[in-house]
Every structure is written in C-alpha cells, then in structure tokens.
C-alpha cells in the first residue's frame, strides 16, 4: 500500500461528508457528515505520519488525539445546540429555520 491509496481514500470520505453536509436538510445528519469529514482528516494525519521521514517523533498520533478530543467537544456542543433549536422551532429541518431571511 502506498501513501496515495490512503490519501485518495481520505479524499473520497471527505467528499462523501461534504456531499452529506450540502445535500441533507436534517441538522443531525449535517452534524454527522461533519464528523465523517473530521475522520477523513484524521486518516490523513496518520497516513502522513506512517510514511514520514522520522515517525518516532509521533507528531501524527498526537495531532490525531487532539483532533479527536476537539471533535468530541464539537459534537457535544453541536447536539446541545440542535436540541435548543428543536425546542424553539419544533423541528430540526434546516430549511424551515428562516427567521432571518427577508421575505
């Protein structure tokens, strides 16, 4: 397996997440599309670390650990916001939240 295999796989996964975030109207699905994109980025970190000149510095795994922690914080706050929005609008449909739009 070469580095290219992993990078292309991560690019495919990133674009699947991007597609989900752009095309779905449910806020929770958009949130987990973002998670898919973050995970693709983590795969890139680990792949670059594996094929780097001096992997004993462990930059890749450390960065991935921090990224996972930040992603966990993000998903907790994101879901709390989704619940707050649901309480206000009684829906998680992103297209019916258009209070700011000029009619």
């Amino acid at each position: 397996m070469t580095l290219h295999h992993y990078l292309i796989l991560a690019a495919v996964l990133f674009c699947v997440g991007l597609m989900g975030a752009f095309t779905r109207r449910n806020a929770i699905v958009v949130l987990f599309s973002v998670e898919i994109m973050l995970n693709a980025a983590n795969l890139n970190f680990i792949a670059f670390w594996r094929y780097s000149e001096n992997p004993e510095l462990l930059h890749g795994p450390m960065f991935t650990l921090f990224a996972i922690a930040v992603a966990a914080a993000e998903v907790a706050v994101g879901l709390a916001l989704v619940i707050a929005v649901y309480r206000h609008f009684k829906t998680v449909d992103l297209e019916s939240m258009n209070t700011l739009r000029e009619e």
Partner: protein
Amino acid sequence: MNGEIAFWILSAIAVLGALVAVRKRNLIHGVFALLVFFAGLSGLFLLLLAEFIAAVQVLVYIGAVGVLLLFAIMLTERVAGDDGRRMTSRGWSWGLVVAVAVFVVLLLPAILQLPSPEVAQEINPSVEELGKKLMNPYVVTLEVLALLLTAALIGAVTAAQGVRMPKEEDLPE
C-alpha cells in the same frame, strides 16, 4: 499481500458506511451505518500501526459519539423520519456538483502530484511513549484541551437546558 486485502476490505466498509449514513432516511439506521464507518476507520488505523489511536477511535466515536447521536435523535425528530417530506435540501444537486468538483479538481490532482515515499521504518509506538510525549513537548496543548473540554461541557449543558424567559410579573416596571 495480507495488508493489501485488509486495506481494500476496510476501505470498502468505511466508504459504504459513510455513504449509507449520509443517504439513509431513517436516522437510527444512519447512525448505525456511521458506527460501521467509524469501525472501518479504526481498522485502517490498526493497519497503519497506530494501535492506541484505533482504541481511542472505538472508545470515543463508537462509544460516546454514537450514544450521544442516538440520544439527540430520540430527543428531537420522529425516529423513522417523515416520509412525506423531502429528504434533500433545495438546490441539493449543486451540493453534489460541488462535492464531486472538490474531489476531482482539487484533491485528486494534489494527491497525484505528491511523491510517494516508502514506509521509513517499522515503528510501533507504545502507549508509554505517547504518554511521555504528552507530558514533555505537548503539555501546554493538553492543558488547553482540558480547558476546552470543560468549557464545552458547561456550554453543552447550558445550551441544552434552554434559557428560562422571565415572567411578565417578574420584570421591573
């Protein structure tokens, strides 16, 4: 050879899991497909000899994030999804075009231009080494991350609790 077969199987699992998660109308099924995606990715981490990261992936994503998503779905939407409503947003085809364009125009050429290095050496980092790194050069990052997690905890509780509007008679004249 074995690694190659494992790579193809695991990447197929990951891509299919992600696709199903993104396209499924039933949100609960979507979350379970997402968990399959996380598991495939954790297998890929194992293949890249990042064992601790694979374990963390299982613990944090499959364990915590999965349960959190399930709870959020049960607290909000009708679980099976509403059949009468459109699933995709207005202008979804543009989203699809942009996603494919990002892949074909941006990512693929950039990846193919990179030189493909060999695996430098077989290194299998132990948890002990990771812990030492965490204490020596990365200690500030660790502290900042602890602060971030605390702030996120408080923020999540506050946001999910909702703001209590003051009643009319409580307001000063």
